[in-house]
């Protein structure tokens, strides 16, 4: 019996890997993996269909929620069966590059005939596709924060709408938020809140930190710089909104745009990616403005999508994968209808793009974009300091203690990555 079982096992184990893998896929059939499961996924379809028509190649688009996307991507790359093209965010690129997961793209982006002309690249976005001087991807877009507001609640309070191009100051923002916060039954819990921060508080915190002229890390990215007077000012501003002025609810993990859709929040801070969701679901008139400026300078948290190839992709598949990557980059104007800002000058200046009024507040902020540190430890650092930020926002620790805690945690992370 043992022999029978052993034999069955051997047969199965030898058969399992056969028939799988990027090598066995026909060369004219590409796989494109992304996390565009929202309205942005619908925009991907016509873009890919146009590619299929012009190239004669077939593309299987696999959309997965971002929460599970990376687990599958890592496994696929490690197994030597990567998708031909896949999407990362700027903030993930450094760690994937550091680990050797990505194919360097120097020959295609830095030669005499680069895939995308140098003069057409929006520098701040394209720089984020480099790690230690090597390019690893083509940016599809940048996406950044804006301030969404409920026009009906503004009308009810008799307040003028925020400008679509000039950011509110921190004081103006607070004044509006106080007037829009309504506690009709006076039970200490407003029926309508003035505004709420993004569901991921690190986006607000970093924006404010940079506005107050601070930073997360020292310029050489080796030391935490978060526990600074600037960090204090940024976090204190947020804490005051929640604890002192009571114009913003505590962050409790929910997608804050759902509060907004229910009419329970007059203004909320979120990225341009929610534009299409609001267009489809909001039952009231609404508008969008640039992120407010509470500190001494303008700054807004941003990231972007970048299309990459894996180092484990068989060489014979790379030419077609590059064609798809170039097509995705070339169709930035169509992609921008998903609420994203293209990463190429020609597309940002394209009349078809400029017609989209809802994107104007985001375009007006393009000079103030700030990105998280381009460090392989970036994701872990964010995980650590964001917990400290939340600790302060929910009143568990004074601002300085929370920042010192964040600094200690970040120092540990940096030490680990430095080993």
């Amino acid at each position, binding site marked *: 019996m043992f022999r029978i079982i052993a034999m069955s*096992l051997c047969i199965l184990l030898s058969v399992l890997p056969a028939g799988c893998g990027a090598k066995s896929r026909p060369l004219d059939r590409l796989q494109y993996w992304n996390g565009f499961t929202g309205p942005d996924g619908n925009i991907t379809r016509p873009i890919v269909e146009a590619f299929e028509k012009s190239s004669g190649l077939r593309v299987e688009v696999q959309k997965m929620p971002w929460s599970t996307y990376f687990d599958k991507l890592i496994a696929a790359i490690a197994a030597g069966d990567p998708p031909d093209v896949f999407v990362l965010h700027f903030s993930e690129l450094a760690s994937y590059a550091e680990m050797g997961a990505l194919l360097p793209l120097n020959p295609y982006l830095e030669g005499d005939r680069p895939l995308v002309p140098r003069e057409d690249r929006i520098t701040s976005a394209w720089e984020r596709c480099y790690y230690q001087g090597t390019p690893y991807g083509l940016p599809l877009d940048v996406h950044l924060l804006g301030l969404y507001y409920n026009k009906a609640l503004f009308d009810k309070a008799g307040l003028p709408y925020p400008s679509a191009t000039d950011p509110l100051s921190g004081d103006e923002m607070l004044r509006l938020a106080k007037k829009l916060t309504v506690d009709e039954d006076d039970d200490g819990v407003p029926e309508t809140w003035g505004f709420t921060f993004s569901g991921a508080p690190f986006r607000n915190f970093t924006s404010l930190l940079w506005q107050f002229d601070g930073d997360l890390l020292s310029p050489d990215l080796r030391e935490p710089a978060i526990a600074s007077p600037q960090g204090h000012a940024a976090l204190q501003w947020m804490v005051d909104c929640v604890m002192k002025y009571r114009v913003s609810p505590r962050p409790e993990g929910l997608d804050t745009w759902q509060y907004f859709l229910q009419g329970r929040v007059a203004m909320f801070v979120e990225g341009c990616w929610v534009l299409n969701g609001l267009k489809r679901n909001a039952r009231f008139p609404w508008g969008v403005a640039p992120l407010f400026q509470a500190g001494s300078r303008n700054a807004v948290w941003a990231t972007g999508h970048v299309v990459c190839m894996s180092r484990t992709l068989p060489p014979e598949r790379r030419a077609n994968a590059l064609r798809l990557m170039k097509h995705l980059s070339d169709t930035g104007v169509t992609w921008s209808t998903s609420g994203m800002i293209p990463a190429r000058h020609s597309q940002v200046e394209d009349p078809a793009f400029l017609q989209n009024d809802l994107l104007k507040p985001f375009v007006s902020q393009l000079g103030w974009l700030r990105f998280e540190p381009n460090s392989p430890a970036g994701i872990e650092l964010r995980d650590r300091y964001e917990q400290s930020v939340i600790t302060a926002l929910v009143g*568990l620790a004074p601002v300085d203690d929370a920042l010192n805690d964040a600094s200690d945690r970040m120092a540990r992370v940096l030490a680990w990555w430095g080993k």
Partner: protein
Amino acid sequence: MTQRTRPLPRRRASWKRLRNGLFITPYLVLFVVWIVIPAVAGLAISFTNWNIFTGEVGFAGLRNYVRVLDDDLFLRSLLNTIRYTAYSVLAGNAVSLLLACGLARGFRGKTLFQTIFFAPVVLSIGVTGVIWAWLYNGDFGLLNQWLQSLGIPRIHWLSNPHWAMISVVIMVIWAGAGFNMMIYLAGLLNVPRGLYEAAELDGANGWQRFMYITLPLMKYTFAFTITVSTMGAFQVFDQPYILTGGGPDYATYTYVYHIYSNGFRYFRLGYASALSVILALLIFGVVFVQYRLLTRSRTEY
């Protein structure tokens, strides 16, 4: 009359062996492929600094195991997990048993209630997490509105570290109690009715019948449910991942969450494997002691 057993003819015996082998092969194959090979590989990886993308392997000796001493989240996540296990196993099994006792009494509409109690088990954790995140929301949630209508101050379920873990446990019990309830129900219905009738004639009240008949006769059911719940609780991950993201301030950050973060977010596969080996040993120890204690008494009627 004695019956002589004749040995099977040789061909029939080998066919029987072949047939038995074929029956267990599918399970065994899956067991080896999904459990044995990954477990052995995990143990081996824990002594390396394996780069999952490039396949580079550097021998790390015991360094990954020593590193846990330098990792502030190792102890934090372990203690959180122990706390979660204690709450969820005790309260979860108590709720399941209570529901099963109620259903075992037999009443009109019993099947409907059975279905209602079991229904959350088939919901995906994603759906469960979103439902409960709304219920728990401190400012907009239904739970706080009910509390307030009863004159009880609202609770910040998910942003208060003391309540956050309890919130996770309540959600898990709601979602999973129906499963153990069915096992308890089967156990309860297997207890011979005659014993209850005899006890009743002897004047035993309901509590005494439960303590001296039901509990002892269901010890193997308890051993199974508690052991399986404990193993599951030590491996809790998706519930806090979806409901609280491990917060606030790592109050619901569990051990497997830590393994996941190290392995799949920070790409420290060697360290994550070492953490997994430690967890496996821990679970083995706890479950071994637990099972011995639970099945120690030899009550038979």
